């Protein structure tokens, strides 16, 4: 399968700068140079000749050039720390270069040289421990070295990129949650799914990747829907074709074919020659919508996924109400949201109803560690959210037969 080594025209690339900020770029026909934050523009020719995973660094001559990944972490062979900070004063007097000196340096030197100058003009650098020196250089490099790392637009990379830029853009959906939702809903090639995706289209896109063109994803929407993630994943045409939009109004109406979304286009405008082409397009679109809707209604789906943010709770409940009857017995229902109370209420109702089994409400506690010889510990972040949001999942069961009260069930 396609695992391109280089970003190509028409594809996306994720760039990460030395401070860790990430941005997605589309290398479309109109794309000239890439502008990453405050960095000078990176010419497209250079970008297209740089493989995924590589680093480009801005050198003293003003050019962006390949830079190898360094494996240079401090050796642990003599990790015994002798020095300490007993005689270090924190009065900002250690650095003899002034900010304007640094600015001048940056005009003529590479980022590396600036970092070197800062270290050699620091009165305390030499007396620091080996680990402290390494940390100092790394911090200065983050600030002064201009470099970008090329990353593949995978579901995980995009999710982290969007999440870092704005949590609300992906309604707080972290990559571990995204993957968990797909697993819990058993999204697999050949399956049929209904999804409400308020997370920048990333859930829909990741589902389309799993389906690989076999099966169907019916994307429920009201008004419009974000497609950013869906496009930036660089899906193939076959993968994209498995995703069909369905308006909520058509699902909730008793007469779906009289809703605006499904109503056939009127022919009034078609008489004017200018509008004829447009009317034709509209008729094609109407036929497609009708076909999609009928295809959904032909059979129940294997899974229902609802990923909604803080402002979409009402929509999530509306979608849940109209979509649950379309979920086949044995199918999975998976909801993601930021608030516990509505999830807990559904969990209680589902457990008591007899119409569901395996009803689980969970969160994921995920934290990242710094892993360095003799310095491994969780990253220290003052405002971290180790648990983000809630996942409610369950299997729907057929509840039409004769029923004994749930109390009679064997408890384990």
């Amino acid at each position, binding site marked *: 399968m396609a*695992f391109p080594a280089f970003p190509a025209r028409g594809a996306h690339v994720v760039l990460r700068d030395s401070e860790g900020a990430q941005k997605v770029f589309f290398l479309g026909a109109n794309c000239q140079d890439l502008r990453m934050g405050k960095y000078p523009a990176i010419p497209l020719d250079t970008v297209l000749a740089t493989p995924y*995973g*590589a680093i480009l660094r801005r050198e003293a001559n003003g050019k962006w050039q390949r830079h190898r*990944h360094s494996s240079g972490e401090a050796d642990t062979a003599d990790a015994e720390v002798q020095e300490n900070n007993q005689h270090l004063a924190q009065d900002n007097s250690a650095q003899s270069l002034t900010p304007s000196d640094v600015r001048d340096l940056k005009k003529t030197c590479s980022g590396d040289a600036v970092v070197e100058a800062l270290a050699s003009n620091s009165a305390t650098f030499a007396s620091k421990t080996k680990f402290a020196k390494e940390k100092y250089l790394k911090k200065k490099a983050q600030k002064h070295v201009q470099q970008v790392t090329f990353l593949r637009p995978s579901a995980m990379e995009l999710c982290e990129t969007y999440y870092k830029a704005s949590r609300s853009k992906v309604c707080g959906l972290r990559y571990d949650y995204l993957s968990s939702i797909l697993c819990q809903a058993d999204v697999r090639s050949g399956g049929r799914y209904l999804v409400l995706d308020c997370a920048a289209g990333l859930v829909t896109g990741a589902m389309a990747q799993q*389906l690989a063109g076999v099966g169907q994803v019916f994307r429920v929407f009201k008004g419009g829907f974000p497609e950013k993630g869906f496009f930036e994943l660089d899906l193939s045409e076959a993968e994209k074709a498995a995703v069909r939009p369905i308006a909520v109004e058509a699902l909730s109406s008793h007469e779906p074919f009289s809703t605006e979304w499904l109503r056939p286009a009127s022919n009034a405008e078609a008489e004017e020659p200018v509008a004829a082409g447009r009317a034709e397009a509209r008729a094609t679109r109407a036929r497609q919508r009708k076909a999609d809707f009928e295809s959904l209604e032909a059979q129940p789906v294997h899974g229902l996924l609802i990923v909604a943010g803080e402002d979409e709770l009402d929509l999530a409940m509306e979608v849940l109400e109209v979509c649950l009857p379309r979920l*086949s017995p044995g199918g999975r229902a998976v909801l993601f949201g930021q608030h516990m109370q509505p999830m*807990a209420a559904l969990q*209680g109702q589902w457990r008591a109803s007899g119409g569901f089994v395996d009803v689980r409400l969970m969160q994921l506690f995920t934290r990242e560690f710094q*892993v360095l010889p003799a310095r491994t510990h969780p990253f220290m972040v003052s405002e971290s959210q180790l648990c983000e949001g809630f996942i409610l999942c369950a299997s729907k069961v057929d509840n039409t037969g004769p029923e004994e009260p749930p109390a009679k069930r064997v408890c384990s």
Partner: protein
Amino acid sequence: MTSEECAREGDFVILWGSYTQIFGVVLKHGEITNNRFGNFHHDEIIGRSYGSKVRSRKGGLWLALLRASPEFVTHSLTHRTQIVYHADISMLRCLLDARPGRVICEAGTGSGSVSASLGRALRPGGRLHTFEFHEERQRQAQADFEKYGLLDVVTSRHRDVCNNGFGEDLRGAVHGVFLDLPAPWAAVGHVSEVLVPGGKVVTFSPCVEQVDKTATELRRSGYFDVRMLETLAVNWGVRDAEAKSKKRRLGSKEAEEKEEDADAARRGEWLSYQMPMRSHTGYLLVATRCPADEP
């Protein structure tokens, strides 16, 4: 209803009894599954649609008939080794970008919990090559994959990858590697033989020292973005605020009436509580192989 929606003879299905009683069963005419819920005759299960409640002949207790999703397989499988659970599995699927068409290697196979999930994620068009150095465990795992119907996508081999590598046929042809080994650092050299540039390797280890050694080895061997992660599932239970506790039922009549009023006010309220969780499973370490022109 299409035949796909019904359980057929030979299907590997899940019979769900409770959160801790989840049975994986291959349906066969004439056979009976016996458990604490009663005796379940396969003849009465075959042909039923998924999502049905199937009853035991005596006692009237039911089990829910469900599809064998990887999640349920994890809950139902026989533990031959310590197994990897949902949070770690879904995380590593994400880290490896496991999806149809990709080729992934796993060592060791263990009880097959990860293999079942990866295998499903790679279908169609992909392949999971899973390696186990314990001969008997490999045989059992192979039998399980046949039972789960995964042989079209999973290849199971008896092999010690730390000493013997992944095999010539996989050289430069693998998009991702997952290592669940006691000494993952010892396999890094062999991983580099099979992993494509830009491919990812993920290891799962319970101890910090294992991660530390592996990370050092990976950095030395031309891998970048070496990240260490820990992920745990936090489970929540729920109960009806109205449901009376035993303690309260023993109180005086007056107190009871008072409580009934209080109950009425709480009608429809649900109380959440945190359920016991695994406090530690293992650390995941992920690293990306450098581009081809960097050794």
